[in-house]
């Protein structure tokens, strides 16, 4: 049985409607710790105009945000702050790791710089570059919007699953060059 639809009416699923709302009103939380933060500001400013993609409302309270953009290197003293802000954000929430430092540690392969935030919080999009151009960040947000459109339901129950809440974590990192036998994780945990 065919239904006659009037003009300007679209048939869709409620889940897709919810995802469409979510993806077009991302509120980013700028976790900008280094030069990537400058590019992040440029992305939000008038020339590159993140507002075209509905993601221009930067909020500095994690309770109001659903997209964390980690821009810059994170040292081990800063990481508890990052973790706490991430946990304070409400589901559904997403994370963009912007730049080489946030994704891998970049050139800062030293004792205090975390080698990739994905060891501690789940990351949805990685943006390469040092620092990335605003166009690259915008492309990451467009790709993230595609991802948001594909996942999720209107009730959002799947966002609260334990698997999604748990961060990936590298308990033992790769051996330091030339120091392979020196470090044992068990010693550190009982220290």
């Amino acid at each position, binding site marked *: 049985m065919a239904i006659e639809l009037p003009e300007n009416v679209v048939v869709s699923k409620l889940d897709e409607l919810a995802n469409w709302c979510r993806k077009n009103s991302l509120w980013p939380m700028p976790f900008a710790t280094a030069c990537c933060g400058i590019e992040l500001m440029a992305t939000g400013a008038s020339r590159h105009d993140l507002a075209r993609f509905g993601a221009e409302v930067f909020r500095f309270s994690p309770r109001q945000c659903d997209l964390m953009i980690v821009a810059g290197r994170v040292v081990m*003293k800063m990481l508890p702050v990052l973790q*706490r802000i991430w946990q304070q954000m409400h589901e559904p929430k997403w994370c963009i790791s912007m730049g080489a430092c946030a994704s891998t540690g970049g050139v800062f*392969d030293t004792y205090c710089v*975390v080698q990739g935030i994905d060891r501690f919080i789940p990351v949805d999009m990685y943006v390469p570059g040092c620092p990335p151009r605003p166009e690259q960040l915008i492309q990451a947000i467009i790709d993230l919007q595609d991802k948001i459109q594909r996942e999720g339901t209107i009730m959002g129950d799947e966002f609260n699953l334990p698997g999604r809440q748990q961060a990936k974590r590298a308990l033992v*990192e790769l051996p*330091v060059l030339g120091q392979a036998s020196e*470090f044992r*994780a068990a010693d*550190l945990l009982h220290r």
Partner: protein
Amino acid sequence: MNEAVIKALRERFGELVVSEFRGSTRVIIGKDALLAAMSMLKTQHGFDMLVDVTCVDYLNYRDATDRFGLVYLLANTVNSDRLTVRVMLNEPDLTVPSMFELWEGADWMEREVWDMFGIHFEGHPDHRRILMPQEFTAFPLRKDYPLQGRGERHNFPVIRRAQA
């Protein structure tokens, strides 16, 4: 060279190793005489400013006989004299008196030297780490500490949702 200052120091503390490089005078003072010498430099010779406190680790350095070289940079703000005072230290005795009583600016600089090299400053009013987290156990600027650390950067408590 600050002949008068060096002469006065030598009269009181015996023969000291003094060297000069591009117009800046450096003097090595024994650990036990440090507080008396610095007090004398401040009160009698007008070195009213402690510019910096820092440290050098001479592990595996060519011809080095001592492990650590603690460096005090002094300045006289009236006649622009400058003097570098060094104290050589060896393990296990890495304790020196704090200069906080003479120059209050020594506070954070001595905390940084403690944080990075593990030199203990006796009498410091707030002897904590300044850059690294308090639970950090190593001293990262020592030459026997690997650049990439011993795994500390990935092994610390993860904050759970209930704690945030």
